[in-house]
């Protein structure tokens, strides 16, 4: 669709429910996938809660959109950076997150994890490497 390929980073800082930012951020990512850009997502602060497994929103009457994260691989969104310090500060570990994988077309479609746990310093380097950052 476009000849220019830029590095897009979608930064998710807020909890999945309570405000609409997380859901509307994901809508941007899904639409943006059609533009064939180099897309990454970052999860930090309360944003790490977006990836927690076994979410159940029945009692609060809003849609549980967390299964959509598992479809990101089909949209070629395969780099989900999660900040280790944000997890630890909230008493979470990688085991609390849902498994998100993609099929690597350059490696005989082997299934690989999309979630990459990075330190705060590494996250800063990821951000510094981008052309366009959208923060939610």
């Amino acid at each position: 669709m476009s000849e220019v390929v830029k590095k897009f980073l979608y930064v998710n800082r807020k909890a999945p429910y309570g405000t609409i930012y997380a859901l509307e951020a994901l809508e941007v990512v899904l639409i943006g996938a059609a533009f064939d850009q180099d897309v990454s997502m970052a999860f930090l602060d309360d944003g790490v809660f977006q990836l927690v497994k076994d979410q159940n929103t029945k009692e609060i009457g809003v849609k549980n959109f967390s299964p959509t994260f598992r479809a990101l691989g089909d949209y070629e969104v395969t780099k989900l950076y999660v900040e280790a310090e944000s997890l630890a500060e909230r008493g979470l570990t990688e085991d609390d997150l849902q498994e998100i994988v993609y099929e690597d077309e350059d490696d005989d479609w082997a299934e690989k994890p999309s979630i990459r746990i990075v330190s705060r310093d590494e996250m800063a380097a990821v951000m510094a490497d981008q052309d366009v950052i959208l923060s939610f």
Partner: protein
Amino acid sequence: MKFGIVVSEGPYTHQASDTAYHFAKAALEAGHEVPRVFFYHDGVNVGTRLSVPPQDERNIQANWTALGKAHGIDLVICIAAAQRRGLLDENEASRQGKDANNIAEGFRISGLGQLIEMGIQTDRLMTFGD
């Protein structure tokens, strides 16, 4: 330099749409370009023509309409966010079977693709929000 601007908070409740306006105005006065402003989340509410702020307050929508007109800025309201929050143009109102529309002069409703396109086509993307 070409600036793309995202406004992601609603008018009056939050400073974002004001600060974005002042930034855009200053950038244009300094000789930069602002081809498009994209209104997302509650920011879509900037584009209603039915807001009537007290006369001794700034009118955020009117400010944007005037700036857009003076400099040919494409003021885009996200359709998905707008539908949730009751922002409709004539086409959308008729398509959704609603009895009114409320979009202000100079604004148009379009898709999230316009946001991504703005990121691709500008030199810097600035987000005004929380």
